[in-house]
């Protein structure tokens, strides 16, 4: 796979480390059901066939965390944005 890094250009996936679902938000630790929410945040994952937004870290490049839009069926990558930049990857 080739990932279009917004800083480095299109680079081979070998340069990146994968984390997973980029749509999760770290729960509020002060909320009433925090423990359950953290359990879900840490352990529960969907396994979609199709569009997936996921975190990739450009470990051997700019060291930026990227939000990447990938189709899990075809590995087609339609875009990537840096985590700090607002907006959707594709």
């Amino acid at each position, binding site marked *: 796979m*080739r990932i279009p890094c917004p800083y480095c250009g299109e680079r081979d996936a070998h340069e990146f480390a994968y984390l997973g679902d980029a749509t999760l938000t770290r729960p509020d630790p*002060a909320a009433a059901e925090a423990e359950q929410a953290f359990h879900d945040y840490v352990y529960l994952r969907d396994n979609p066939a199709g569009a997936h937004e996921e975190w990739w870290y450009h470990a051997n490049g700019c*060291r930026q965390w990227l939000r990447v839009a990938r189709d899990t069926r075809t590995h087609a*990558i339609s875009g990537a944005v840096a*985590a*700090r930049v607002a907006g959707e990857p594709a």
Partner: protein
Amino acid sequence: MSTSNRNRLTAGGLIDRARPLGFSFDGTRYRGYEGDTLASALLANGVRLVGRSFKYHRPRGIFSAGAEEPNALVELRSGARREPNSRATVTELYDGLEAASQNRWPSLAVDALSLNRFLQPFLGAGFYYKTFMWPAAFWEKLYEPIIRRAAGLGRAAEEADPDHYEKATAFCDVLVIGAGPAGLMAALAAGRAGARVILADEDFLPGGGLNAEAGDVGRKPAPAFAAEMVAELMSLPTVRVMTRTSVFGVYDSGTYGALERVSDHLPEPAPFQPRQRLWRIIARRAVLAAGATERPIVFGGNDRPGVMLAGAVGTYVQRHAVLPGQKIALFANNDGAWREMLAAHAAGAPVETIIDVRTEVAADLTQAARAEGIRVLTGAQVIATAGKTLTGLTVATASGTERIAADTLAVSGGWSPSVHLTCHHGGKPRWEEAIAAFVPGTCPPGLSVAGAAKGVFGLGACLKDGAAIGAEAAQALGFTVPALDVPDVADAPFALTPFWHVEGSKGAAFVDLQNDVTAKDVGIAHKEGFRSVELLKRYTTLGMATDQGRTSNVTGLAIMASLTGASIPETGTTIFRPPYTPVSMGALAGHHRGKDFRPVRLTPTHEWARAQGAVFIETGAWLRAQYFPRNGEKDWLETVSREVTSVRAGVGLIDVSTFGKIDLQGRDVGAFLDRVYINGFAALAVGKARYGVMLREDGMVMDDGTTARLAPEHYVMTTTTANAAKVYQHLEFCLQVLWPELDVALSSVSEQWAQIALAGPRARDVLARVADGDVSNAALPFMGAIEGTVMGGVKARLFRLSFSGELGYEIAVPARFGAALAQALMQAGEEFGITPYGIEALGVMRIEKGHVSGNELSGQTTAGDLGFGRMASTKKDYIGRTLAARPGLTDPDRPAFVGFRPVDPSRRLRAGAHFLPLGAAPTMANDQGYMTSVAYSPHLGHWIGLGLITRGPERLGERVRAYDPVRGEEIEVEICAPGFIDPEGVRLRG
């Protein structure tokens, strides 16, 4: 040397008769010419028997002239370079080539195991699953060794491969796969448009079918036309022509795998050249122009040496000027094969008989054949063959059967487009009734197919299609493609009547020659219910091994379809997966082998440590000094104990540059550290360092280390050596994803700073002589961290930290001064007996002191388990806090961190031993934890240990068993506090 070449034509062909090449096969020496393959040179010398078959040891000859070869597999070279299962048909001849036949004993001509032929009834489809089922114990001891000896292919070299393999990456706009008529035109169309083109072809001579074509193209002989096209392509600045290069796989995002055989055509690689090079080609578009593979007709005795694909006969005659035989017959179901034979006949090959299953064949063909004195039998089938190598055929016609003398039988059942690469993303080929063949279905993105690979047959049509597809690929990328003058070649109409299998023929009729799968085996699979293509393949092994069923898949499928009564498209096709042709393990490994498997990281003081006589050990990617033996020391334990004693009594130094070092700057670093460490950092004063523990979000300990505040907005963190990259990645995630609002910038400075730990009661005396400023207890108290200079002006960071439990410092200087600092410290410490120590002594001292390390930070321990429970702040949130409070992680029965001493001080402790209550049986239910770290303490004079045991801190003084079934040892130990030396910390504060 035999000089016969008796089957060589005196003129013609793409060989250089002025450049003879000597080679040997099974010890006999022969001569071929430059431009030969091993197969063409063997045929030129009349060698027709080249191997024994996989299961039945039947004599086999050369069947094809390309990558599809199922039979002519040989061992190439000898000794460490011996390479089994090399296809003679694609092995480029070189002077001195050595080849040997495979799978025969004692010799190729007389093979004792050809007895297997008489066992054929028992070795049929699925025999592995039926014959050797009982008794089960016999499989490993008896059946498998016998089968392995009897069945099989070549022998791999037993020595290490002496050659090098490389990996390389290339980028292009258009990758063209195959340099036949379609590929050449596609490359030219895209190349003239200015696109960056890579044209890859597996042959050593680009041109594909043009090199075996008898007719003219553009008023030139076809091979000369091909050569001109190649010359122009090579002259174009944006085009790269790669010969001897097989594109073997299509991967994601337009990435293609290719294998370049750089030196396979040489006795051994030239100096500094690899044998093979593995290419990763990133192409915006690709054109597959891989051509098509001829398929045989299946009939009894169709594996006899002398039976050969019709196209192969044509190639040997036209390209190599070799006559595969003196009495040639053709057995076919299509017009193309007739034309191939007529052309071969015109070139001097004695074609005597043409047998066609069709009752009606175009008059122009039959007339042309008869005019040449060729006998024509239509509506006829070959039902048997005779001879060790072929001497005759039995043919059934409408009027009965007759025997025909022939030493070569050309066979053609039609052509199958080489759709393999189009399937690599899961696309399924589609059956095209008009040509009775599978054509590409859905292709990988960016890949289009041209010429025979998509079922466009005929030279003229291939040239036009190649030009069109090449232009289309370039246009899609925005290039303007100039008009291309494509030579006109009149193609004869395509005429073929599907025909697969001569039923009722005599003798074994092979569908898959490489795996010895017969038409009868397909029938057995059908009878036993293994009817889906995938089951047929696995049950009979049809289509497996080096040729991947190139000449057998479609035929096997067609026979199954006729048995089930379903159509071929209903029966399906097997999916082709990478690699298209075999790729050696050496090429996949590249330079990553042995010591070069991965880069080695050296500490800044590596050379200094070597000069001190250090023994080194790999720790992750690092090579670190393990200990520094001196003359007269009998083992490592004596050396390590001496190092430890010297540090505790005087002073020692060790390179700790391998720790991860992270520079943190910004207004919010304190707040950030508060969120990633369990303990508080916001109140850390400038000039101070603090020990911290960080958790994963699931509540387990991730890492520990110290962070120092050098300036109000400038901190530096250390991590463990092993977790340096992981912690850095985690911190970047926290900053970029979780809390982008924090004003913090991170930078890894592990490589930039050399760091040396100085420990022992005389450490300050030594440091004072090296540091430029005041290092007194007042200026640099315990856990102090200051910036300054050492050695007369070298920028340095001084930390007062202790891992050993002694008065200790860590001195960081820019990496290039690391070795100089070590030398300066050694000089300054000479009068105090300063001792360099390695990571073994470091480990002993941290166990004596009771510090946790990698063995305890196992990813399965909580802060509470390790005794850091009270460090955890309750006034803030931090990563892992919420889930660390889960009942399972706060269970008071969890194994917790304590020390252990042997009740009998003469006994040795073992890491990994499990703790059991005294008298309890060694069961999982009684397991209370395990020993994580052990060391011999020279300070105490006996072994000590650290470990995790249920409710450990509440059980100090209790005795338990340390049970080690792996080593068969068991000893009684006493639980103690995890600090064997100076538990009050007087020494390190002194």
